[in-house]
């Protein structure tokens, strides 16, 4: 053994073989069915899954049929085992994926969700409008003013109680966006409750715990304690919640304003990779620039320094670039 250079001290990784759609697939032991599907080059829809967060397997859009299991299993969280037999394209799987997409599409505003979300809706022929004469989003209530305690029924829903359903339309999570600070906004009309922001704010990245999941059932929601504005909460404005949000429910104020004004245009944006100028950690930044202005800052999720996460300076401290 060489005493110079790098010596791996990791335990040797065993490879196991499982069966995906009738084909043998070799994956590392300890990985998931989702990894096996990727290895087999099978496109698996995912919404609540993120490579840099602990799987919560809440959205259930990645379910697959596992031989011997009574119900479908989430590919993102279920560990791959030698000899497993998995099917990803059965009628049962397609039905569940389609209905999950219809459930979300009919209750949540997916207009700013990822491109792949819209592709999956098309692939699975999901028709969110089938649950109500007009299941499209009603016009959102006016935005709650900065600093004011946001008040909306969803924020104060009582667990175990709900109003009798209105048969003329399908229930949605529509509510006013929360604009309570200078840096980012929260529009929970677009929230699919994937738990990613809570994980990123908590144990998985920032350890700030400014937000949690509150309420229960369809009234479950992301909230600060007693719905206080972010400015009264533990928030440190790292923006890591924005970084992991898959639907645009959390957004830079710059992006929110430009979208409202109709000036947001990703085709006119240039993404420049650089290193954060502030401290010695050396986080990788991606500056999204439109019309010579930085409109958003991200970091790649697969970056070994950041895992996609930044702090307030790297995320929001860029106005000096324009010498303003």
């Amino acid at each position: 053994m060489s005493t110079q250079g790098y010596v791996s001290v990791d335990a040797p990784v065993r490879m196991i073989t499982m069966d995906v759609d009738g084909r043998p697939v070799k994956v590392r032991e300890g990985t998931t069915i989702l990894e096996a599907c990727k290895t087999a080059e099978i496109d698996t829809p995912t919404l609540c899954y993120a490579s840099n967060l602990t799987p919560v397997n809440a959205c259930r859009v990645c379910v697959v049929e596992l031989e011997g299991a009574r119900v479908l299993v989430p590919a993102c969280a279920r560990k791959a085992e030698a000899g497993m037999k998995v099917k990803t394209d059965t009628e049962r799987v397609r039905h569940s994926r389609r209905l999950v997409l219809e459930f979300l599409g009919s209750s949540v505003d997916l207009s700013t969700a990822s491109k792949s979300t819209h592709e999956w809706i098309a692939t699975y022929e999901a028709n969110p409008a089938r649950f109500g004469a007009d299941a499209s989003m009603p016009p959102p209530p006016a935005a709650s003013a900065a600093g004011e305690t946001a008040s909306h029924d969803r924020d104060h829903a009582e667990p175990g109680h709900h109003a009798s359903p209105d048969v003329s339309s399908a229930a949605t999570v529509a509510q006013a966006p929360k604009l309570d600070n200078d840096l980012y906004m929260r529009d929970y009309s677009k929230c699919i409750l994937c738990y990613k922001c809570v994980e990123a704010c908590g144990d998985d990245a920032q350890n700030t715990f400014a937000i949690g999941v509150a309420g229960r059932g369809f009234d479950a929601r992301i909230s600060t304690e007693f719905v206080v504005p972010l400015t009264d909460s533990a928030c440190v404005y790292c923006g890591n919640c924005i970084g992991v949000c898959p639907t645009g429910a959390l957004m830079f104020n710059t992006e929110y304003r430009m979208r409202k004004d109709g000036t947001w245009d990703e085709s006119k944006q240039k993404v420049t990779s650089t290193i954060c100028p502030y401290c010695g950690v050396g986080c990788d930044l991606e500056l999204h620039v439109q019309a010579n202005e930085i409109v958003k800052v991200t970091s790649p999720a697969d970056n070994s320094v950041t895992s996609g996460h930044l702090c307030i300076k790297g995320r929001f401290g860029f106005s000096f670039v324009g010498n303003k």
Partner: protein
Amino acid sequence: MDLHFTTDVPTDDEREAIDAVLGPDEASSPDGAPRVAMQNRGTPERRSLVLPALHALQAREGWISPGGLNHIARRLGVPPAELFGVATFYAMFSVEKRPKTVVHVCDDVVCRVNGATEVAMACRERIGPTHEENEGLMWIKSPCLGLCERAPAVLIQKAGRGRGNETLAPATTEWIRASVEDKKLVVEPPLLVGPATGRRLLARVGVVDPMSLDAYRAHGGYAALRRAIDIGPSLTIREVKDAKLLGRGGAAFPTGVKWEAVAQQPARPHYVVCNADESEPGTFKDRVVMEGDPFALVEAMTIAGYAMAAEKGFIYLRGEYPLAKALLENAIAAARVRGFLGDNVMGAGFRFDLELRCGAGAYICGEETALFNSLEGKRGEPRNKPPFPASHGLFGKPTGINNVETLVNVNLILGMGATAYAALGTPGSTGTRLFCVSGHIERPGTYEVDCGTPLSRLLEMAGGVRPGRTIKAILLGGAAGGFIGPNELDLPLSFEAARERGVTLGSGVVAVFDQSVDLVDTLLRIAQFFRDESCGQCVPCRVGTVRQEEALHRIAQKRTLGTLGDEVKLLDEIGQVMKDASICGLGQTAASAIQSAVTRLKVFEGGA
């Protein structure tokens, strides 16, 4: 890690109530400090005091105030936002200021055919609309309170020093008035149980003073634990296996196999947990056991702890059972004093102690992994399985978790021997079972019969339907079970016969409905129940229960999207995704009763 707090501070009263549960406050940072540095997030066992502390605050003030929540958060090292998420998960906690007396009127499937409407009307007349305060009072509707044999039922949540929650059944306006005015109610209502012959699990119920350990011992109590100690842990497990005891909570898993799996786990410590969160609509048998024979559960838990090498056990009791709580607290304390719990149980050189924890109004916490999360002071959201509780249960440790009825069967097995026990019932379903007979029936109550007894015989024992009435439908196994029609009364009450017929006995619910029932109304209530009780974690259940309820309302109001057939097909599709893709049993069975009404009772044929 720093914890950040809003400026809200607790009142002296709130502080006192919370510190009575958490012990004296010796922390250096006072309430009101905006930031408190935490060495770590506290031990998991410490965090598990979240629910008892929230109960203490709710019981003193009638609500979870911001100052009180901050105090609990600081003392337990839990971020306030996270604690708010826990508090807003449970129906018995309110984060909005409420009057100190709140009347919860059960309007679930059984009570609504047995007088709940009249109670609700009386409340509306005297107090006003639901959820609105009127002269220090408020009333709201409640899911099943587990008092179906004495329907209609009411729970009165009474906050303030020296006050406590109370259940009333059958509830009359006079009783409700007396209770809200803190008048001592004269009589404790009887425990309605079936005929004395053939009672084994219920032998002491209604016969022996539930407060007295001596009375319990004089009637055979603690002979089972003595025998377990004589034969040792592994032979105790062998007895349970040979008796072929299947779990009585609904899933019918072999108890001995479960116990053996836990006992063999190398990780330490092991825990035993009793699932006493009986919340399935129409179920009340566990309450009857706990109210009538609480020491039996304490003894059975001790045997479980001994067999599975656990030194600590928890009973997670439904929050709406104040009487069972008082009786179990008394039983645990008495057993501790007399050496039946503690460092040297029965002088046999093993250590075991029990703690009673109360839920706070969340059906989902009867799901075993949700129950663990709730006990640990987290939101009662189910965990993905695998891993299973036998290896990763409470606090991530090997845990044996059993239902109340399952556990008290162990006393019976050790008392009579596995062979004799296994001779009871049928080869596939040994022993006796408790059934909760309620609804349109002459003598509702808890009935103990040998497994395999025909349903018709059980109904006969309960006196059948009222004179001049005929059975229209029977809900078996609760809201998560299914309906059968009057043509299926020959059903033998065994696991295997139920499986063969495509029904479930679940938690032993036999809710009988005669021709006066409006079945669509019953289905709407079941759909409302699941919409209210879904934890909200996974999409199929969170949204599926909403879409299911909406479709049923469209059918009931004759405002269908397309034809009635289209709506029935939509219900089927919604049911399929909930069954296939939900995380836990709640979502997986949220459509089963409704689907059974469609397929077995043909409820929508010929229009709604």
